[in-house]
């Protein structure tokens, strides 16, 4: 058999006139941690609900473990799911909640007990079985929801922004743990989030969604460092967007006119000389130097005045204002301890680290 755990083919879902999911085709591998990343309203939750069987697609097919499940109801699909607000059954104890999927499958008692013992240990929630959900903390509820999703070792686990309601510290901790469980169990996860950090931390691959469509589907590093579209470039990571015009095209490089200055980027596809382009440069790819310093050969250079330094510990954000007032943010190791607001500075970066795209709506 193939290594494909989930196959989506041309899935489309409309609500009235709006198209929530637009011809989505995708394959997710066994053991893969796959994230659907996008702003709210991009259709990622709808897509997840379609996979779970909670919504009917208008068009397209869903294959799970080599079996076409498009016409099957949710309860025949053998998937697990972790919901955004956890949706623990309020009338059941933690133990009953976790055992629910096994009970529905009619697993024998011995197996249930064994699995429950296993999962509560795995998720560090042993001792809570007799409590009711409302007696648990947010983190505990999260773990119970995960336990419920995992206990039956589903062919696929769907997670709908499960960490959105947790506080920052807990979220960081859970991000690591969720990733660990996924590795240990080898079950494919489809993880929906609007939080790029979550997606980048946990995923193997990421699909960036926008108004029902995939903008880019790629391993997370690629999505980060080599965005396929302007939307991906702006949504993943922190980048400076510079809208300018192509002044010249030469040897796979374009020279861009921007804000009274010129710099080079890899030539954007489909943009001729004179075309408007959006250039994205990740903040951490930029370097800020004292004015008059020597830049590396071939590097782009921009002048400016340091307006503010936001110290974050390991790194600092340097906010540099151009003469026109446009600001550029540079994230860098806190290497200019003596720099202060008002100093004139020089920003440099390697031309290849920028990404140019024909400007939208220009």
């Amino acid at each position, binding site marked *: 058999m193939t290594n494909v755990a989930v196959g989506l083919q*041309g899935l489309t879902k409309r609500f009235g006139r709006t198209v929530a999911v637009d011809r989505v085709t995708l394959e997710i591998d066994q053991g893969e941690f796959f994230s659907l990343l996008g702003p709210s309203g991009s259709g990622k939750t709808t897509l997840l609900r379609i996979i779970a069987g909670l919504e*009917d*697609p*208008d*068009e*397209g*097919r869903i294959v799970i473990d080599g079996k*076409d499940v*498009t*016409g*099957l*109801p949710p309860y025949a699909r053998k998937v697990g799911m972790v919901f955004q607000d956890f949706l623990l059954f309020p009338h059941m104890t933690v133990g009953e909640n976790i055992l629910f999927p096994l009970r529905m499958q009619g697993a024998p008692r011995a197996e249930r007990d064994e699995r429950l013992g296993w999962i509560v240990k795995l998720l560090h929630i042993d001792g809570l079985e007799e409590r009711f959900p409302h007696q648990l903390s947010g983190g505990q509820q999260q773990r119970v929801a995960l336990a419920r999703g995992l206990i039956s070792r589903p062919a696929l686990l769907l997670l709908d922004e499960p960490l959105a309601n947790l506080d920052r510290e807990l979220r960081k901790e859970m991000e690591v743990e969720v990733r660990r469980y996924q590795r240990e169990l080898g079950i494919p996860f489809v993880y929906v989030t609007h939080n790029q950090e979550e997606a980048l931390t946990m995923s193997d691959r990421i699909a960036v969604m926008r108004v029902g469509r995939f903008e880019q589907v790629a391993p997370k590093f690629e999505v980060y460092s080599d965005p396929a579209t302007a939307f991906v470039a702006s949504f993943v990571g922190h980048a400076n967007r510079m809208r300018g015009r192509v002044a010249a095209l030469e040897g796979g490089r374009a020279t861009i006119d921007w804000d009274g200055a010129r710099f080079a980027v890899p030539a954007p596809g489909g943009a001729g000389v004179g075309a408007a382009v959006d250039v994205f440069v990740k903040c951490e790819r930029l370097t800020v130097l004292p004015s008059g310093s020597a830049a590396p050969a071939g590097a782009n250079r921009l002048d400016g005045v340091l307006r503010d330094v936001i110290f974050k510990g390991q790194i600092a954000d340097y906010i540099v204002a151009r003469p026109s007032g446009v600001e550029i943010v540079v994230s860098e190791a806190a290497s200019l301890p003596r720099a202060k607001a008002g100093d004139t500075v020089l920003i440099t970066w390697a031309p290849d680290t920028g990404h140019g795209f024909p400007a939208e709506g220009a």
Partner: protein
Amino acid sequence: MAAPRRLFYRSETRFLLLGLPGVMFVVFFLLFPIVSVIVFSFWRTESYEIYADWNLDNYRTVLFEGTYLTFLWRSIVTAVVVTAACLVYAWPVAYFIAKYGGRYRLLLVLALAAPFFTGAVLRLSALQAIMGPIGVINMALGMFGLPAVEFLMFNKFASGIGIAYLYLPFMVTAIYLSLLNFNFQLLNVAKVNGARPWRAFLTVTWPLNWIGTAIGITLVFIPCLAESLTPTFLGGPSGKLYGSVLGLQFDQTGTWALGSAMGVLLFAVCCVVIAVMWWTIDLRRTGFTGAGR
């Protein structure tokens, strides 16, 4: 393109499977019979015999002769007053049960329903024996040499008490069920943000439980409008309500056509009441969690 989902799993199918039995039940066992009443309302009765002469006389009588509108008006006023009284009393009671009832709250609510195990005729008769001129109350007052309370005897006030007696538990139940799923923490949120208890109640508790309250109002108001038994026992010579006179048409005078017209009018008034209630409900502001919010 898409593999057609098996019919049974479609939400459309399920909606119909769940909803249609009730709707068909109403159509078969209420709508069809009611059509006969509507037809009768355009016919004529004479000496307990009904004749199929199509005419509008019944409606002319009911709507323009004033007599029947007097009863209708009396019923509406009674219903408004009784419903308002029930509302004012039921809210604190339901609130108490939902919030402080603890593990016994179900028992507390069921206890409100317990008197209903005794028929209305018997209870009204007993109520009359308690409130009447020689009832328990007045006899007790007499023992202490106090004058009898006249307002409890055979008048509209007494019949209002009787009607409230019959329907108040409906209101409490509806509000209680609404409060059962109400998150009382929200009140603390309001209070933390500077709302005094009353303010918190008016801006948070009340609007979030308005559907339950509106249902309670409906459950009391509509039966009140049609009430016939209570005024007969407690209302005295001038307390007859629309429902009593409606009953008279069918039970005693055999004037079915006129009675049918009265019934149709009552139905129309109820529809207006429901329309008004419906209009006050803004689903988005009531914490509605159903689909399509």
